[in-house]
């Protein structure tokens, strides 16, 4: 069994299992990887490393995508 960790995903604290990858987090959240950008502790991740990057306690993950917009 993996230990439980706490990570911040888009500003919300979530309990997660240690040793899980970014890909697994996206799958669990039902998010298609080809349409989003993931920032881990302010580092923008290349899609190619989603499978390899492991999440650890206290990590701050931002998942962003495109929405309707002109200017603001």
């Amino acid at each position: 069994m993996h230990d439980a960790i706490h990570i911040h995903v888009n500003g919300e604290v979530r309990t997660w299992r240690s040793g899980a990858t970014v890909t697994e987090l996206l799958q669990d959240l039902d998010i298609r990887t080809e349409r989003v950008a993931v920032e881990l502790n302010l580092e923008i991740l290349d899609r190619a490393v989603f499978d390899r990057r492991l999440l650890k306690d206290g990590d701050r993950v931002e998942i962003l995508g495109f929405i309707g917009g002109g200017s603001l």
Partner: protein
Amino acid sequence: MADDRLIIAGREFKSRLWVGTGKYKDFAETKKAIEVSGADVVTVAVRRVNITDRSKENLLDYLDPKKYTILPNTAGCYTVEDAVRYSRLARAAGVSDLVKLEVLGDERTLFPDTAGLIEAAKILVKEGFIVLPYTNDDPIVAQKLVDVGCPAVMPLAAPIGSGLGIRNPYNLKIIMEMIKVPIIVDAGVGTASDAAFAMELGADAVLMNTAIAGAQDPIAMAEAMNYAVQAGRLAYKAGRIPRKLYATASSPIEGML
């Protein structure tokens, strides 16, 4: 006007009307309005994905990336750091190096912080971005943006979402004459005549969102804008007659009794 293509950084665009995708009632209306407008470039914003409610549909399900160039913007960014960060995120989430760069200076007017804009553009161009900057109607700033490597410049007609139309046609005209890259008039258009006017001045394209999405009938307004941009472009290329204070008869005097 098959030979009248807009080319920016080696990319060819069919339409001279570019549209934003915000403020519509739903995605079906967004899609329909874009289709009717004839636009082939659509702007999108970069925001956090909703992780609690995944039932929500995605805008990109409605926009075929083969049909449209998706142009991410940095809307809502007030600092160089934020604008650069959002541009990088947009590139990571998307498929291209295109970015509509906004560095805003003030919440009430949403006018650009042009010093920050030039600085952010410089950084992003070095990173390989194709930077299309949303700027003020200032010819000197426009030239500085070109100098740092922007392949087009997007001066405002009026404050974003204001619908005030072309507030300073003379500055825009100077920009169009001075600046050797395509000029896309962005923001402030209220109705079809504003879009036609921008094109008659010599704009290479017009970008709008609220004028269509906020109209009582957005689909009808999208069609009106399509015609207006085409009419304005044709009139510009046709070359208008000079303005004169007095009449010039258009019927001959010869043959009169």
